[in-house]
């Protein structure tokens, strides 16, 4: 299992890059110009994230440095122990369904603090990468067509977020633990 997953990890990106380039070239896409055109769009995306990152980084740094985080974790400890979720990951798990950029800031903070190759760093990367922002998706998709009553969609979204976090913990422990 470990070998398989790490092999996929190692090869996924090189294979994808060469496949896309060769396939595009074969389809007569001007690969270089098209790349430049797409990459330009990256600047807009990055600028859009910047204010979110600053807002959340300040809030999280405050929350951690002030001791408020320790207080919250003490309250949640029995539940976390039951689910085997490391307490360092809690702020990320709480914010992941609510804000994509907010949770990205927390994941970055965890990686900066514990190192990208620590268990916490790997877990933060996997959690952040493996689910989407439920609240955002619901707001945009239902908002676009004027749905007021979302039926059970929110419940499904939030429960799957929790499932995604638990799955991430299990997979990361199995592979790296």
């Amino acid at each position: 299992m470990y070998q398989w997953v790490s092999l996929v990890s190692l090869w996924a990106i090189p294979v994808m890059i060469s496949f896309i380039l060769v396939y595009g070239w074969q389809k007569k896409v001007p690969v270089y110009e098209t790349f430049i055109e797409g990459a330009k769009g990256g600047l807009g995306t990055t600028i859009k994230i910047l204010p979110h990152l600053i807002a959340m980084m300040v809030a999280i740094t405050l929350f951690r440095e002030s001791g408020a985080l320790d207080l919250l974790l003490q309250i949640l400890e029995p539940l976390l122990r039951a689910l085997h979720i490391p307490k360092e990951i809690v702020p990320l798990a709480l914010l992941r369904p609510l804000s994509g950029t907010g949770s990205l800031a927390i994941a970055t903070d965890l990686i900066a603090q514990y190192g990208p190759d620590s268990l916490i760093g790997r877990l933060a990367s996997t959690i952040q990468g493996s689910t989407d922002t439920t609240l955002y998706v619901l707001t945009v998709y239902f908002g676009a067509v004027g749905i007021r009553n979302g039926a059970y969609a929110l419940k499904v979204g939030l429960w799957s977020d929790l499932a995604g976090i638990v799955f991430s913990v299990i997979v990361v422990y199995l592979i790296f633990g």
Partner: protein
Amino acid sequence: MLNLIWLFLIVSSIVVAAINGRMELINQAVFEGAKNGVTVCFGLFSVIAFWMGLMRIAEKAGLLQLLAKALTPIVGWIFPDVPKGHPAIGYILSNISANLLGLGNAATPMGLKAMEELQKLNPDKQAASPAMCTLLAINTASITLIPTTMIAIRMQYGSANSVEIVGTTLVSSFAATFFALLLDRWYRIRSRQLRK
């Protein structure tokens, strides 16, 4: 919702710091946090730009349509309420394909088109139809092949192997999506029984 969380994080921190008498840390943390935000953002730009450039090539080469074709058989099973050949199917397929490729910017417009088509089939225009709920379940637990942003951040902090989380992300997001679809199916059957 986010407004409240942000407010709560900051105000509760200041209150706790006041109680503990650690106010000097607050002043430091504000500027340290803001500076970190900027540093991280500029580190991200490199990889986001590269990935978006590459994905534009994939889009223009028609890889999206190709993937959509490959996924067609699955969609009939996931969306039993949508008639075969309805335009909604095409948009749903493009949406799922774009998600798989990590093309968030392309996935959302496709998803919204799919929602419009599903709304035409919806008898109650104010309430979500089961097919809409399923589409949202797929999108909130989106399967990810390449978590580009996280790889970029790991690189920036000097990871020895920044892509080692591709496999774990794939397995975990696959499991979460499967779970979301099962849960969606269960709620759908239950809400139908409640109506009878």
